């Protein structure tokens, strides 16, 4: 009943109730009025007595529209029922008849689905002849293939599930399995689709009767009334438009109801107004990246997610800084914020956030970053545009930011691909990304960053999606690039060993905060924060005793929606006491811990 809380659902259900009321009681309430011949008022226009006028026998058209609801709705429902039953049977055929016959049925359904419904309706109308019964059969049969396709897909999905497999192994018969285990699980989408089919059938019937192929006089449905009214559209258009409006309203009633139930709940996540801004500060000197009190808030289904909660750090010219932490620690969001790639409704606040001399908090600073900031993303398989060739994707940077022509930019792209050690770069540049392997794509992505003269490379888990040998190549390439260009590096990784190999300095993040900051060489031996130590201990090395279970960090990461008041790591920390649980430790001398350096 969630659907009823949305305006669309309410509108649909109210309309549907009205339409069904007219169908049930229309002929009883207005039947007399609809057949009363008034020879003094033939083909009259709208008046107080006849709201949308009268027909050629002086009968009240408004009453006739209301009375016609019953036949129109009944025919639509009958056709829907035919389509649904046939569709279910055909859709369940692979399950009922076994694989080979089932495949034949599925193939025929696929052929039939290709034909538009109206064409099938016309075909069946020829077979069954002109008239209401023939039309109902025609619309029903014509609707069956689409229904069968839906049921087939749904049933195929359900029969993969464990409980159906279990029933099959237990020797439950096919028909019983369908009734007991499959149908109840596909009922909801089938009913939703049936509701929409009923709406469509209603419109198709109107069309058929309008063409003269459906309901025949003296019976009448909305389509027939429209057909009668169309001849007089010059004199009084409401005679044709009135039943038309009824058709549209009834169609809407079915569609809106179906859609409201199909869509399910869709809440909008809006952030509460921003708190007071952090006091503006000046960027650190000689730094290519400087952030102060960086906060990132993301709207979520259960309230705002504070992904980054006041992070301050800087990266010096040519320095390599690593950020480590578990998933959900806010390290990737920090990288995206630093790269200026977060968009509203995500909120980014900071005392300052400066990259390569540009103030990222000011509007319009981004364009100049096109050449001075390079970004390498986690998944090379999805980070290239599949619709364009690789070379032009690289060349675009030079064409757009450096004013190079098509040829010159392409030549530079080929040159950069060679620089990142891609063999046969002229040919490769003309290929699509899907023709590249994962490692090659990541190298090409680095090459894309080298189209400009980057002062900073932000690499967000650049090796996570690659296998180990390729990881090594990509890391070596990053090191070479830094040596050649003198660019600084901000490397995000959950892999402690990668960061210690590549970086000068390491930031350890936990629950959206930096908990420790130390030289990379000290990470293994001199870490003082219990979380850093646990992180390091969780990495096996050559001296790890293989007979003992591998070390893990007990407990789960903090829910970013509901961060505890004290130290966020306290619930998982062996050293935590009440002070830790109530007072958040500030980052002092490179570590944010009340028990820094204490032995467990």
């Amino acid at each position, binding site marked *: 009943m969630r659907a009823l809380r949305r305006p669309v659902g309410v509108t649909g259900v109210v309309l549907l109730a009205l339409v069904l009321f007219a169908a049930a009681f229309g002929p009883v309430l207005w039947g007399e009025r609809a057949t009363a011949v008034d020879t003094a008022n033939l083909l009259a226009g709208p008046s107080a007595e006849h709201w949308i006028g009268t027909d050629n026998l002086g009968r009240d058209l408004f009453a006739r529209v209301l009375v016609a609801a019953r036949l129109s709705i009944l025919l639509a429902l009958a056709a829907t029922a035919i389509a649904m039953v046939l569709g279910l049977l055909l859709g369940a055929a692979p399950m009922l008849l076994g694989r080979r016959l089932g495949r034949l049925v599925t193939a025929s359904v696929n052929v039939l689905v290709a034909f538009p419904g109206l064409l099938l309706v016309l075909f069946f109308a*020829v077979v069954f*002849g002109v008239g209401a019964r023939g039309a109902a059969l025609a619309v029903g049969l014509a609707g069956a293939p689409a229904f069968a396709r839906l049921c087939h897909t749904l049933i195929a999905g359900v029969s993969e599930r464990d409980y159906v497999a279990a029933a099959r192994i237990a020797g439950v018969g096919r028909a019983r399995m369908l009734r007991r285990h499959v149908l109840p699980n596909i009922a909801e989408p089938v009913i939703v689709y049936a509701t929409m089919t009923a709406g469509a059938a209603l419109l198709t019937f109107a069309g058929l009767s309008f*063409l003269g192929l459906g309901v025949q006089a003296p019976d009448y449905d909305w389509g027939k009334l429209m057909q009668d009214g169309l001849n007089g559209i010059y004199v009084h258009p409401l005679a044709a438009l009135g039943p038309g409006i009824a058709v549209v309203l009834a169609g809407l009633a079915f569609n809106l109801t179906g859609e409201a139930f199909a869509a399910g709940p869709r809440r909008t996540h809006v952030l509460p107004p921003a708190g007071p801004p952090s006091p503006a500060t000046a960027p650190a000197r000689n730094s290519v990246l400087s952030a102060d009190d960086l906060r990132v808030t993301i709207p979520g289904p259960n309230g705002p997610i504070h992904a980054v909660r006041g992070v301050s750090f800087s990266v010096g010219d040519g320095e390599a800084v690593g950020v480590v932490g578990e998933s959900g620690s806010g390290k990737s969001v920090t990288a995206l914020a630093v*790269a200026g790639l977060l968009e509203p409704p995500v909120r980014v606040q900071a005392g300052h956030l400066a990259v390569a001399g540009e103030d990222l908090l000011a509007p319009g600073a981004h364009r100049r970053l096109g050449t001075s900031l390079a970004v390498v993303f986690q998944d090379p398989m*999805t980070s290239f*545009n*599949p*619709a364009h060739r690789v070379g032009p994707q690289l060349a675009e940077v030079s064409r*757009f930011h450096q004013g190079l022509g098509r040829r010159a930019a392409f030549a530079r792209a080929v040159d950069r691909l060679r620089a990142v050690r891609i063999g046969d770069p002229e040919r490769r540049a003309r290929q699509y990304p899907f023709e590249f392997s994962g490692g090659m794509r990541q190298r090409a992505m680095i090459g894309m960053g080298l189209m400009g003269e980057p002062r900073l490379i932000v690499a967000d888990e650049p090796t996570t999606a690659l296998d180990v040998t390729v990881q090594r190549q990509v890391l070596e390439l990053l090191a070479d690039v830094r040596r050649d260009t003198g660019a600084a590096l901000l490397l995000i990784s959950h892999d402690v060993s990668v960061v210690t190999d590549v970086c000068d300095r390491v930031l350890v993040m936990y629950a959206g905060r930096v908990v420790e900051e130390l030289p990379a060489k000290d990470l293994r031996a001199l870490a003082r924060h219990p979380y850093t130590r646990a992180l390091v201990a969780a990495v096996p090395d050559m001296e790890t005793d293989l007979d003992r279970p591998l070390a893990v960090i007990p407990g789960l990461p903090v829910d970013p929606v509901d961060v505890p008041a004290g130290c966020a790591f306290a619930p998982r920390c062996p050293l935590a006491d009440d002070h830790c649980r109530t007072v958040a430790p500030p980052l002092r001398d490179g570590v944010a811990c009340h028990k820094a350096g204490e032995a467990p």
Partner: protein
Amino acid sequence: MKTATAGLKAGPRVGPRVGRWPRFALRRAARLLASLWVLVTASFLMIHLVPGDPVRAALGPTAPADLVLAHKEELGLLDPLWQQYATFLGHLLQGDLGVSIASRLPVGEVIAQQLPATAELALLAFLLAVAVAVPVGVVMAVLTRRGRGRRAELAFTGANVVVSAIPDFLLGVGLVYLLAVQTHVFPVAGRAGPDSYVLPVLALAIGPAAVLSRIVRVEMLAVMEADYVRTARAKRLTPVRVHVVHALPNAVTATLTIGGLALSSLVAGTVLVENVFAWPGLGSSIVSSIVAKDYPLVQGTVLVYGVGVLLINTVVDVALALLDPRSAIGEA
């Protein structure tokens, strides 16, 4: 994935496998032929599925018995079924669709006369629908991405649901009332000058345009969240360039699939709209021939409509394979 790309890199494939394009062409051609066979057989069986005596029904209860017999003879209905089927297929291969019962004209001739009017209408409406739907869908996607522009979204989806609930022939009636009867801007019916095309094309195009623009928007919304769009933004391109050059081409695949469906249902939709506007096309003639039980003519018209739809589906599939080479590989 790794082995697949390695195979591509190596150039010529190892083993007896055929290249992906011939495989795709073969599969697609087989599907087209199977569908054609179903269509032809169905239209042949149509006349035999009619309950009772179709010729008697066509000529009316007062027609003399020998006339009915003569007609049956002419239609070949007295031969055994397999022979009728063989004759039907043979004539079809020569382009002979039989002779209309009512007008005594060759069916092929009648259809050839009316087909251009219908094809024009469907094609113009399709082009108009695409020309409207793509920009509208893209703009709405950009305006309403990530929960922005809630009012714009509500207005768009609301209008969309209402418009797509109005069947094309009703739109036609409404348009006639507003723009022909009330204001005399456009002719009420018939096919004469360019202005006579406006209302029928509009009536046909509005519904598909609404559906298509909804699909374009949904696809664009999905594509705009893709990693490669983030890559494009990391290149600091202008938003227009990001959306049009990097996002839109990736939204085209699904749009084209639905567009093909829209086009084939447009072909069928012409039947109703042609009747509203007294358009001298196939749609007007199929209805009158169904009512008159002129079976050869109905048979021919259904065949032509069906072949049109099948050709559209095939063209769409080929276009998809060309635009998105992965789809052809996936099938092969």
